[in-house]
């Protein structure tokens, strides 16, 4: 429990507060106690509480102030009213203050515990909801950010722009100030700034321009190897962030995220908080990893596009270069152009050409920058890297000269010494021989792409051609003219990218420039097994012609293998060349006896041959035409290769563009099914296949079953269920990799169960490719593309479909997230609606105290909020039977569940637990058929349990659709039922109090006494008719008037006004003591006796005064007469008594009075004394009883008084031989009393002790302090004691204990009565403790003086 669980108890009564807090602490709550209203108010304002228990009885402030204040603070606590006044007022007050509960003192702790638990439960629900909402908001923010990143990245194919946008979205997502993207540069091993967002100008040079050497960074391993986010909330002191870049601009927190594309870390993001200390939980980091994953995925398209675009640009440059070269005739100029362009195209710092001169290599051309690395004028073949290329006749590619292990260091030494790390060398080939090399050098290490090597080879070919051309140039003038025409032809050939255009230009040039009648181009097919005729210039027989790449192809084969032109210009030539196989000689086209076959060579590869002859015109072929023709074929070969590359690049660009379109489409929708449709359609379009199917694994059927697709026969889509490992799709699913078959009919690897086999045989296409749809280690299903004819799936196609499957998995994942979020959002909404409703309903409950009206309003809102068709409450009567039902039902009438035995209500009532029927058709014995007839599908029933576990009723909700009844909803409704219980009980209490009020009013008015209720502040709260009559006021109009004011207005008619006023003041000051007195009313001549008693509530707390008034005019008159009579009589008695006494005294002194007569006189004197005491006692009693005796209070010493009494009684004590001791503790026992009266008390008690203690007994008197400011006097004797039954009546008038007579017959039964009257008159107390036969102790206490 956190501090928000604390409970504040506001109660002015420390004992009650302790009682409550003790209990609640034992229940595990933390408690704060406020002893005053002021303190309560302050603490409610300043601290946070879940609950406030407040007593309505606060002396200092109005408790509703606190309740109001509690409603105002942040996260307002619930309030439970605890009251000792179970009155209508307090009930209404509690109801009006919308308290969560109303508890009457003395507190029923079980009920309190239940209410408090309920309040906390509701509070926990609210907290849960808040947390759920916060989580959802967070998730929503994440999803939105991802969507934003997806959308933003999808809308650009520029990597840098994409990175910049990602930076922006990351900063937004993380609430960061700044972010930057870095890409790993292989050449330097550095992280190079690639994009940045929101970098202050002064830090631009630092943050977005400084490269970071990757391996030197402290975060290298976790970021690069573990691929985890790395963060610090104190950059300046973090040992991982030591590079000057991090230290040179003042920021507090930094976060590094790896940028992963195609499972390779290609860079990272650095996110910056300038001043905030930002930390990340493990959950945050997991989220970030997810974001990184998606970001990389989004970036892939852009990267792909960028690569393709770069290649295409290069090809265009190459084409341009070819054209420029064709127009250049100076070989030096050509070679210079080539080295410069080579360096430029590859992005290398240096490039050069060396040519074979004898067995050494000389510099043919070099870029200015290559002067150092190519400083040696001559190299041996095999020496250095250059020599190696020539010696091997194949390209040499070294990505990093320092790390390379393939080549001998001797070869690399020169380049390394001059600071180069990357190298490519391609051979220059002419007529099948290597004649030189084209080299490029890069300063940094480089990953060279195959495209780049091909590009350089093409340039090398251009260089070889240029050299050849220049040789031709030197030969003849005619050759020059020819050369110019050839150049022109080459330029024409390169004016279009289309292969057909280029072929056509070639054929035309061959005819026009070289002068052949027939020119036919054969190209090698994909697997290099056949030569296919792609163009036939002028021979209708040639199209479709195929030649095997075997010696059967005769001269064609020879040209291919030797890479040199084969010219048959004479019969000798014909005899020398390999003849064509007979089967081919049957072909009309091939029956030629004079012809030229030239190879088409691109760098290392031969791509085809060209055959030419003059069969049509039968002209002879000039030997001079061979060289230019061969040269033209070289041009064609390059042009065709360029065209092929260009076409391939275009195709890949289209593919990238299309994938990008797919991604965009996928990014715009979160609907799973729509996404799958898009993916199927795209698979169809991108691969050109005939049909597409998406299969998902069905856990129930344990098989892959069709989910979505295009153009598939229904037999397949509806009937096929493949176990993992079965068929192509099953294998792809099981093995988690792409699987395909060229032709299922001829593929032994494709096996099915007999059932599946039948369907496949009947409906499946021939070739198919299946790719698993995998996300996060989980395989969801398989994407399958179908071809109706046998088909070889190229790696390209496999890759494409895999990419689509990746997209599908990602999109599905996002869609699932979204669905999950939507679901949870709905759930949260239900919960929050529910809480709102609960509050609303609570208000509805408190708005009215009339049960039916209240329930009606509450149920209406309840049904609405929980989407129920009907809500019903069955109220139970005291005997458990249903007394009546209140509710809302969706249609007319009510479902007829009469609450029979075994029904829902009965069950809930018995078990006291909620009953949730998700589908009532499954509980026919539980549910009355009428429900079904009404279309009810689900029912939820909750017991309404009140105090002492009594079931007050049942809350029933009826739904016409099946309900899942989520946990939150059930908890809410349970809590709601509890609320209902409180409300019902409050309403019951209200009704009860209303009845009671009526009854009380009746009693109030029918009593003969006057009754006035006075508030603690002295206002009249109520007065009955009789009171009005007695005091001459209108009972109805004095309510609210202060009694003191009423007294003052009647001052003139009150002879004792001052005393009455003082009495009233004293009463109000200390209402607990109560009091009584008479009030003489001069105007009416009446005497009214008033008795004031404290008005107590159920918890015995004092809430005012009740004045009972009675007309005692007659009693007072009678009493006066009695007093007068007693006074008269005693006076009259005393005179003769004194006479008797004195005469006897005289007689006793007479010397004649001796012997027997003397003893008679003595007895007569004792009898007279007793009579005198009796009369005195009677007189005192009469005066004390009538209140006429005024006492003169003055300090009196109990010790002195006791000694004086003992002196008087000394003869008696001596006579009986008592041992008497006085224990004086020495404490101040000076009391405030009337000494005369007090003496009588001490005297009476002491003489009693002597009287009732047998001779020789022990008597002790103890003096000391009593409790509080009192003195205590006690006398203990070892006398006869007092029987238990007599003790209670001992101090009554005329009472004598039975055993008293056995000792002494003279007692009057007035002594102790008088003692009591006196002690009480002196504000003291007297009591007795005794054990019969063993003795008694009589004690009294009196207020001490001073």
């Amino acid at each position, binding site marked *: 429990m956190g501090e928000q669980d604390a409970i504040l108890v506001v109660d002015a009564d420390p004992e009650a507060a302790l009682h409550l807090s003790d209990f609640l602490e034992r229940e595990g709550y933390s408690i704060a106690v406020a002893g005053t209203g002021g303190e309560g108010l302050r603490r409610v304002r300043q601290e946070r509480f879940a609950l406030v228990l407040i007593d309505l009885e606060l002396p200092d402030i109005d408790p509703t102030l606190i309740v109001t204040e509690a409603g105002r603070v942040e996260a307002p606590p619930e309030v439970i009213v605890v009251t000792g006044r179970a009155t209508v007022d307090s009930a209404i007050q509690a109801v009006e203050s919308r308290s969560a509960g109303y508890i009457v003192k003395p507190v029923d702790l079980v009920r309190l515990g239940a209410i408090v638990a309920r309040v906390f439960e509701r509070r926990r629900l609210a907290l849960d909801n808040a947390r759920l909402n916060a989580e959802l908001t967070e998730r929503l923010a994440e999803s939105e950010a991802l969507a934003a990143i997806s959308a933003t990245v999808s809308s650009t194919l520029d990597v840098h722009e994409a990175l910049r946008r990602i930076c922006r979205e990351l900063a937004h997502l993380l609430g960061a100030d700044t972010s930057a993207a870095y890409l790993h540069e292989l050449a330097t091993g550095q992280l190079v700034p690639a994009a940045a967002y929101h970098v202050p100008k002064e830090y631009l040079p630092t943050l977005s321009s400084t490269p970071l050497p990757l391996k030197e960074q402290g975060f290298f391993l976790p970021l690069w190897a573990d691929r985890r986010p790395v963060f610090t909330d104190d950059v300046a002191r973090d040992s991982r962030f030591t590079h000057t870049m991090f230290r040179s601009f003042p920021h507090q927190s930094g976060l590094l995220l790896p940028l992963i594309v195609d499972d390779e870390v290609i860079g990272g993001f650095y996110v910056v908080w300038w001043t905030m200390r930002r930390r990340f939980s493990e959950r945050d980091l997991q989220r970030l990893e997810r974001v990184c994953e998606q970001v990389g995925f989004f970036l892939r398209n852009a990267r792909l596009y960028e690569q393709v675009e770069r290649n295409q640009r290069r090809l265009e440059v190459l084409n341009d270069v070819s054209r420029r070269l064709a127009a250049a005739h100076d070989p030096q100029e050509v070679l210079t152009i080539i080295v410069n362009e080579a360096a430029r195209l590859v992005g290398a710092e240096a490039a050069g050409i060396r040519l074979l001169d004898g067995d050494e290599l000389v510099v043919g051309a070099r870029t200015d920058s290559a002067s150092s690395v190519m400083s040696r004028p001559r190299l041996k073949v095999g020496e250095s890297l250059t020599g190696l290329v020539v010696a091997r006749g194949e390209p040499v590619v070294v990505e990093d000269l320092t790390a390379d292990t393939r080549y001998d260091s001797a070869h690399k030494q020169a380049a390394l010494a001059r600071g180069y790390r990357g190298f490519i060398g391609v051979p220059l080939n002419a007529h099948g021989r290597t004649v030189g090399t084209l080299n490029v050098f890069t300063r940094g290490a480089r990953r060279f792409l195959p495209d780049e090597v091909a590009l350089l080879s093409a340039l090398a070919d251009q260089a070889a051609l240029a050299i050849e051309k220049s040789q031709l140039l030197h030969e003849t003038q005619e050759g020059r003219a020819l050369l110019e025409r050839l150049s022109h032809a080459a330029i024409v050939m390169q004016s279009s990218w289309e292969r057909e255009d280029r072929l056509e230009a070639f054929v035309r040039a061959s005819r026009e420039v070289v002068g052949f009648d027939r020119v036919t181009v054969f190209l090698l097919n994909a697997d290099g097994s056949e030569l296919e005729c792609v163009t036939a210039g002028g021979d209708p027989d040639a199209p479709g012609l195929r030649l095997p790449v075997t010696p059967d192809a005769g001269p064609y084969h020879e040209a291919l293998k030797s890479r040199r032109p084969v010219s048959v210009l004479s019969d000798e030539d014909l005899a020398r060349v390999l003849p064509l196989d007979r089967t081919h000689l049957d072909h009309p086209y091939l029956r030629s006896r004079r012809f030229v076959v030239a190879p088409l060579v691109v760098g290392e590869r031969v791509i085809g041959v060209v055959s030419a002859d003059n069969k049509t015109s039968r002209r002879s072929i000039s030997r001079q035409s061979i060289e230019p023709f061969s040269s033209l074929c070289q041009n064609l070969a390059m042009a065709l290769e360029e065209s092929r590359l260009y076409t391939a690049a275009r195709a890949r660009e289209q593919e990238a563009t299309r994938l990008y379109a797919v991604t965009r489409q996928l990014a715009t929708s979160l609907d799973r099914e729509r996404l799958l449709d898009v993916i199927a359609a795209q698979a169809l379009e991108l691969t050109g296949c005939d049909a597409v199917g998406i299969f998902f694994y069905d856990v129930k059927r344990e098989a892959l079953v069709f989910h979505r697709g295009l153009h598939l026969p229904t037999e397949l889509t509806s009937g096929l269920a493949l176990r993992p490992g079965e068929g192509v799709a099953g294998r792809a699913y099981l093995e988690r990799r792409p699987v395909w078959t060229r032709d299922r009919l001829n593929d032994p690897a494709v096996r099915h169960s007999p059932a599946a086999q039948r369907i496949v045989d009947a409906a499946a296409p021939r070739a198919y490719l299946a790719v698993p749809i995998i996300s996060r280690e989980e395989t969801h299903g398989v994407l399958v593309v179908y071809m109706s004819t046998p088909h070889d799936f190229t790696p390209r196609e496999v890759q494409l479909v895999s990419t689509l499957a990746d997209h599908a998995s990602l999109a599905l994942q996002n869609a699932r997230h979204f669905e999950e979020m939507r679901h949870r959002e709905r759930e949260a909404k239900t919960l929050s609606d529910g809480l709102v409703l609960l509050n609303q309903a609570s208000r509805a409950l408190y708005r009215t105290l009339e049960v039916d009206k209240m329930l009606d309003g509450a149920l209406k809102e309840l049904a609405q909020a929980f989407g129920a068709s009907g809500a019903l409450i069955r109220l139970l009567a005291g005997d458990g039977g249903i007394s009546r039902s209140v509710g809302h039902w969706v249609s007319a009438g009510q479902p007829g569940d009469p609450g029979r035995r075994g029904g829902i209500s009965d069950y809930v009532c018995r078990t006291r637990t909620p009953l949730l029927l998700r589908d009532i058709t499954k509980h026919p014995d539980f549910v009355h058929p009428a429900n079904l007839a009404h279309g009810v599908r689900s029912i939820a029933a909750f017991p309404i349990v009140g105090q002492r576990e009594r079931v007050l009723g049942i809350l029933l909700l009826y739904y016409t659709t099946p309900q899942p009844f989520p946990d939150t909803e059930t908890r809410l409704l349970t809590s709601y039922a509890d609320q209902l219980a409180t409300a019902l009980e409050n309403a019951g209490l209200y009704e009860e109090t209303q009845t009671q009020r009526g009854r009380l009013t009746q009693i109030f008015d029918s009593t003969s006494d006057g009754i006035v209720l006075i508030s603690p502040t002295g206002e009249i709260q109520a007065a009955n008719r009789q009171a009005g009559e007695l005091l001459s006021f209108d009972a109805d109009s004095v309510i609210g008037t202060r009694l003191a004011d009423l007294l003052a207005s009647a001052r003139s008619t009150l002879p004792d006004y001052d005393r009455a006023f003082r009495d009233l003041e004293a009463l109000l000051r200390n209402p607990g003591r109560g009091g009584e007195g008479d009030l003489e009313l001069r105007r009416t001549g009446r005497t009214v006796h008033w008795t004031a008693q404290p008005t107590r509530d159920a918890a015995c707390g004092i809430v005012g005064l009740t004045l009972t008034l009675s007309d005692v005019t007659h009693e007072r008159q009678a009493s006066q007469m009695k007093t007068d009579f007693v*006074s008269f009589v005693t*006076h009259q008695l*005393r*005179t*003769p*008594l*004194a*006479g008797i*006494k*004195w*005469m006897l*005294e*005289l007689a006793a*002194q007479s010397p004649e009075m001796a012997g027997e007569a003397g003893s008679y006189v003595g007895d007569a004197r004792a009898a007279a004394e007793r009579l*005198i005491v009796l*009369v*005195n006692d009677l*007189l005192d009693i009469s005066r004390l009883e009538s209140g006429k*005796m*005024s006492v003169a209070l003055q300090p009196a010493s109990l010790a002195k008084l006791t000694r004086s009494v003992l002196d008087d009684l000394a003869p008696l004590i001596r006579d009986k031989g008592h041992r008497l001791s006085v224990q004086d503790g020495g404490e101040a026992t000076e009391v405030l009393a009337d000494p005369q009266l007090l003496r009588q008390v001490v005297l009476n008690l002491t003489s009693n002790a002597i009287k009732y203690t047998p001779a020789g007994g022990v008597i002790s008197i103890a003096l000391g302090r009593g409790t509080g400011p009192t003195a205590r006097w006690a006398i203990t004797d070892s006398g006869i004691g007092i029987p238990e039954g007599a003790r209670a009546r001992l101090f009554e008038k005329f009472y004598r204990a039975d055993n008293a007579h056995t000792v002494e017959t003279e007692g009057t039964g007035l002594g102790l009565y008088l003692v009591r009257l006196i002690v009480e008159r002196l504000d003291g107390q007297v009591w007795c403790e005794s054990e019969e036969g063993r003795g008694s102790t009589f004690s009294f206490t009196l207020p001490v003086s001073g």
Partner: protein
Amino acid sequence: METTGKRVLLVEDDRFLRRACEASLRQRGLTVTTAADGEEGLRLARSERPDIVLLDMLMPKLSGLEVLRALRGDEATRGLPVLILSNSSREQDIAEVNRLGVSGYFVKSNLSLQELGDLVGRVLNGESA
């Protein structure tokens, strides 16, 4: 101091009391003059100039209170010691006689003759009663 021969005026309407009291005081050697009602008592107090007056309260003609008031109102008898011997213990009376100034207020039935004699002796000797 010797009290023998001192003169006591006893104002008492009850003859038994008057007799007993007179006898007892005489036995102590005091000179006793008696009066049976208030009027007589007042007259004797003025004429006889006693050393002490023992005064009853309820008496015919003039009550003890009226006698006392008259005595205190007269310069000649203002200082005359008076002991009130009453049978009433009414507080108003006690308060009133104390206000006027007396040497003591006693209830006769509560007093023995012995005690009375001692009291008179003490008053005559100028001690407090």
